[in-house]
């Protein structure tokens, strides 16, 4: 039972870390200074969420096992820490959904992905506030205040770009085309999500799909955009089967710790 909770906590942490890392690529490259600051502030919030989840996961792992090899990562030796979980796990040990690892693309793609994800997190964390697991509930309650900002900001930008110029509208259409097939995975429960939903720690993510679609439809209609029909969805990230993009991110993210193990500054 504890392994399910560890996997679930890592899944939540990985989602936030990877999207935070992706968004941080805009640092110094945003379309205007204010939006550069906005997207990097959002990165900071996401990495903060990840830290909270990793710290909790590390506690769970250390309580569970005195074994030499950690149950969650081959390269982890000794006690797990928030840093070892972020810097020393391999690609197939990450449990984030595919949506968050995709390249940042242009501003339209970054905005649309943030909107999809923030809307998902908003619905998910609202419910996790009432989780029977006190720490998950506390992290959700805390994060939700910031997610509310992320959602408002990204919703406004979807409308601004969708209902903007011919070019911005075109770019949004392209972003929808590229990202939509990755949204289905958010609502397809993995084995550990089902496990923690069963004991009141997590929730049944499939139930979030309808309210999510409704909110996206509402914002899209203001943005003069429409949601695509049925498409075959891409899944696997939650179980460790990733696109090549995750490898690229981890190469950069983990470079220092892989090259100079234990390095500090």
């Amino acid at each position, binding site marked *: 039972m504890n392994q399910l909770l560890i996997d679930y906590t890592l899944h939540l942490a990985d989602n936030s870390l990877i999207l935070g890392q992706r968004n941080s690529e805009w640092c110094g490259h945003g379309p205007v200074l*204010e939006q550069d600051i906005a997207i990097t*502030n959002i990165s900071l919030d996401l990495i903060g969420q990840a830290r909270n989840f990793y710290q909790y996961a590390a506690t769970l792992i250390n309580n569970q096992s005195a074994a030499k090899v950690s149950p969650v990562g081959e390269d982890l030796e000794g006690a797990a820490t928030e840093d070892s979980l972020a810097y020393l796990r391999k690609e197939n040990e990450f449990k984030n959904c595919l949506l968050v690892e995709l390249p940042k693309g242009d501003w339209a793609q970054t905005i649309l992905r943030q909107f999809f994800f923030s809307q998902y997190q908003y619905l998910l964390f609202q419910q996790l506030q009432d989780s029977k697991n006190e720490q998950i509930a506390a992290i959700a309650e*805390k994060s939700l205040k910031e997610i509310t900002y992320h959602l408002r900001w990204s919703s406004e930008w979807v*409308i601004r770009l969708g209902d903007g110029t011919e070019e911005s509208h075109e770019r949004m259409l392209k972003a929808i085309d590229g990202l939509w097939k990755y949204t289905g995975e958010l609502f397809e429960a993995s084995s550990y999500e089902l496990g923690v939903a069963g004991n009141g720690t997590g929730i049944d993510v499939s139930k979030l799909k309808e309210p999510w679609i409704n909110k996206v439809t509402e914002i899209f209609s203001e943005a003069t955009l429409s949601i695509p029909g049925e498409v075959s969805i891409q899944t696997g990230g939650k179980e460790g089967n990733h696109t090549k993009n995750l490898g690229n991110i981890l190469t950069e993210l983990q470079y220092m710790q892989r090259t100079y193990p234990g390095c500090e500054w």
Partner: protein
Amino acid sequence: MTIHTINKEAIYFYLEEINDPEVPVLSIIDLGIVRDIKMSNDELEVIITPTYTGCPAMDMISATIKIQLATLGFKKIKITQALSPAWTTEWMSEEGKRKLKEYGIAPPNPKQQVCDQKLFAAAEAVQCPHCDSYHTHRISEFGSTACKALYQCDDCKEPFDYFKCH
């Protein structure tokens, strides 16, 4: 000095001297970051809460608290981070708000003014910390740190930081 010869109020008094590294005019007490102090036989536990989830100042604040209390003679000091209840600007002291304004940062408005802002809602009325005018507009919802937004005064034309209501 032993724990038995010092009371909680005195500890708060000493913690009052520790400032937030990003908003150095505010002490951690003004900000409402210190939630509780627990004293047991030989251990002093300080319970703190982050302002924002990703606030990078928390590690430094924890370290500074430890150093400050160690110089007072405490040997076993434990810093615990509590996330719930989530920090809110309602916990900022009146003294803190006064100091912020004097420093040139508009203090947070009371909470009820900004709950559930609608999309593209007009920015809340924020008073310019320099000339007290309410003719101001928001330049960016996100500012130089997670807790601030950027505003500009339409009367004196000065840009200024607003400590967001949270």
